């Protein structure tokens, strides 16, 4: 028995991989190619990031590309050009080229959910009007690893800007399987000449010539990208889905100029019902906010002014949600807000019939939007700076 144990111990390094044998992949890009798909990997150069002294000579990340008929084939082909084994457990981002997204991503995603090494805590975004490879090749400032930069930026902008949204692999897969609620993905795009992206010395300037920027939310239909929501529609969509904080809202003042309100708390409910055989949906949104900027001449100390502002905002949000709903019904034909699921929850029996031709039923569905806005606080001053002095 002892010799058996010794044998096991002595020969046992099957799964061992030393840290310096790993190519830690921070981001994956998937593009369409003639043979199937093109995989680009953003690999972290740990020596460059961890070493405090000699840093700055090499780029913090390196990008590799390979093509293959399947995801795994491309991944394995990558080994022909890298000295290390690709390690996927620390993926921060998966970027899908728009072309690829439009033609269907289900096949590529299967490997990501099946392969034991990959976790599910990264975000999936679409390279809007770009190839994923270009996005991955772009270096970022402030944050050395572009994938981290994208990841955190999405985290923050999702809350503060509202026109973007995080999507994880599980969300996507649920969306593909669930006809009553399609998935969405944020779009990422590149400002500037893509060829400048990989250059290190562009950081000599305080204003990098190429930057990555999130733009809009892409709606999926099944595993295909159906189209993009505009900024307003994206915001509407996110309002309908709830869970926003710190988002700013701009409202026009009655006498010209704008006021800005920051969201403090919000709560939204998507409901569905079936009345007389035809489905109907409703979105109820309750918002609490705080006045953060007044660039017009109003008297914020008056209850009336505030309630007018509130009404303005309610209209604004209502408008945005309606826009999102209309777009998803008419143009995208994809139930991104999840009315189908809402009906499923409310009336499972009716849903069983409805499910079969939900895309048609969804297009004709009526949606009510109710918004209730409350401004609780007006900030640290009570008079706008732009107030005209009375003479």
């Amino acid at each position: 028995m002892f010799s058996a144990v010794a044998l096991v111990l002595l020969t046992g390094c099957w799964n061992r991989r030393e840290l310096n044998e790993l190519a830690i992949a921070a981001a994956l890009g998937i593009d369409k190619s003639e043979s199937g798909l093109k995989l680009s990997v953003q690999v972290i150069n740990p020596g460059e990031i961890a070493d405090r002294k000699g840093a700055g000579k090499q780029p913090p990340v390196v990008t590799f590309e390979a093509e293959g008929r399947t995801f795994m084939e491309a991944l394995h082909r990558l080994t022909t050009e890298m000295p290390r084994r690709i390690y996927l457990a620390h993926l921060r981002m998966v970027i899908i080229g728009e072309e690829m997204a439009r033609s269907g991503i289900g096949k590529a995603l299967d490997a990501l959910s099946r392969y034991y090494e990959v976790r599910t805590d990264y975000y999936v975004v679409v390279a809007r009007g770009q190839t994923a490879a270009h996005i991955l090749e772009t270096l970022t400032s402030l944050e050395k690893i572009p994938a981290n930069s994208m990841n955190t930026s999405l985290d923050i902008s999702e809350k503060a800007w509202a026109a973007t949204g995080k999507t994880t692999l599980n969300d996507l897969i649920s969306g593909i399987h669930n006809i009553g609620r399609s998935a969405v993905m944020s779009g990422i795009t590149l400002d500037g000449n893509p060829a400048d992206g990989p250059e290190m010395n562009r950081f000599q300037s305080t204003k990098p010539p190429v930057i990555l920027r999130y733009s809009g939310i892409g709606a999926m239909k099944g595993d295909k990208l159906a189209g993009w929501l505009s900024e307003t529609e994206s915001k509407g969509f996110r309002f309908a889905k709830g869970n926003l904080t710190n988002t700013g809202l701009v409202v026009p003042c009655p006498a010209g100029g704008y006021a800005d309100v920051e969201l403090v708390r919000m709560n939204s409910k998507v409901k569905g019902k079936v009345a007389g055989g035809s489905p109907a949906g409703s979105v109820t949104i309750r918002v609490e906010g705080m006045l953060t900027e007044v660039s017009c001449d109003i008297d914020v100390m008056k209850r009336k002014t505030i309630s007018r502002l509130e009404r303005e905002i309610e209209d604004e949000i209502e408008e945005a949600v309606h826009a999102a709903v209309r777009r998803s019904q008419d143009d995208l034909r994809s139930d991104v807000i999840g009315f189908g699921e809402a009906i499923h929850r409310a009336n499972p029996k009716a849903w069983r019939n409805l499910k079969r031709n939900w895309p048609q039923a969804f297009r004709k569905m009526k949606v009510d939007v109710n918004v209730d806005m409350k401004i609780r606080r007006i900030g640290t001053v009570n008079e706008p700076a732009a107030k005209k002095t009375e003479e």
Partner: protein
Amino acid sequence: MKNGMKNGILKSLLRLLQNRNKAEAPPPVPAASPRGISSKLAANLQRFRAEFGNSSDLVTREMRFGGAEGPRIALVYLDGLTDMKALMQSLAGEAAPGVRERKSARQWLDHLKQTAIAAGEIKEAGVWGDVVLAVLSGETAMFVDGCADVLTIGTQGGDRRNVEEPNTQSVIRGPREGFTETLRTNTAMVRRKIRDVRVRTEAMRIGRVTQTDVAIMYVQGLAADNILAEVHARLNRIDTDGILESGYIEEFIQDGKYSPFPTVFSTERPDTIAAGLLEGRVAVFVDGTPFVLLVPALFTQFYQAPEDYYQRADFSTLLRLLRFVCFMIALLAPSVYIAVTTFHQELLPTPLLIGLAGQREGVPFPAFIEAVMMEIMFEILREGGVRMPKTIGQSVSIVGTLVIGQAAVEAGLVSPAMVIVVAITAISNFVIPAFNMAISLRMLRFLFMAVAASFGLFGVVICLIGLVLHLCSLKSFGVPYLAPFAPLQLNDQKDSLFRLPAWMLRTRPRSLQDRNVYRQPPKGKAP
């Protein structure tokens, strides 16, 4: 079965050894000599000198007691083992007038025994072997010419270490005295703490050649009978030529002979022994060492410091929890580090992974070899430092820090993270109060590292289950080793991992005995 066999082998080995000894030197007590004692003084002294081979430290002093009419007497003692001052004083000078009338040697002997000699302990011996043994133990044999009985006088003395602060198990608050090498001093120190007639001390001699004094101490009524019987039985079973330290006894009487874990507790501190006795444990004193054994010894005991009871309860509890954490670190840190960095990199937060990977760039060895190398290097340093005089020991550690901490990292032989892991492991190991428990962790750590290197965390968990199994199978003198936890004794939890305030510790550990459990009057009853 196994024990019996082992003892058998030991015995035959011993016999072999003894046979060899016989060829070189005569055995201490020749079996052929008669048991009785001659009434002739000269013959006795002659015999003594012959048996001791004219040893230079054997003093045979002949004198006449009580002036010219008094009997001829002789003192036999070993120089250096004895303190003869008081005895000599009481023997010197003329005997009182009434005394001189005595005629027979026997009467003189009685007089000497009852009146003349100023010494605490005087015994009469009629068997030759006893006398020799008494002399060997530092007593003085007094022969009176014409009498076949001998007085043995307790003159043990000579140069001995004073009571000092113990080097091991030092405390910030608490008594500073530590045991010495003298058995009697040691038992006295405990007696001084527990003034109760129920404190029993039983003496025995173990070691055919060394004839070492061993004393068992317990509190009658608190120590469980079965434990006491077991201690007696195991001590009686020891048959060896020499006991030079309590460590010998420990190895003979411990349970789980192949276990790396100690099942006998040893301490230099009288307060720890006193506390143990009050809990119903049994102490074993061995002459010639300041380390006193305490049984049964349970796992938790090795993680408790005497100071726990002298500091505030909340603080002590936190310290105990800290020690438990240190136990985990000391046992697991290198193996978990190996497992995580070579098998489960997905478990590390990304920034940490990048940092570690950056540090490892250019390190030539796999993490396992790196860890083993560093651990061994550390063990060498520690061992090197321990045996050195304090001043040199320090320079060893300085060289060590420089070699490991700086040069090795800068030469790219090891990664800085590994140095941190090894260092925290080593320091955690020092936190464990009992040295013998700390050693067992040091050994087990390597096993864990080896398994982690081929099976990752799965191997570590499996090893941990195995370790718990092993610990659960251990017993110390019939008491399960993990006693207050498995089998669970809710009542004993008050003083195991936690230490509740003294006024809440109403009971003695029930795991040890359940007859006299109350230390304080039970709740609701007036004292």
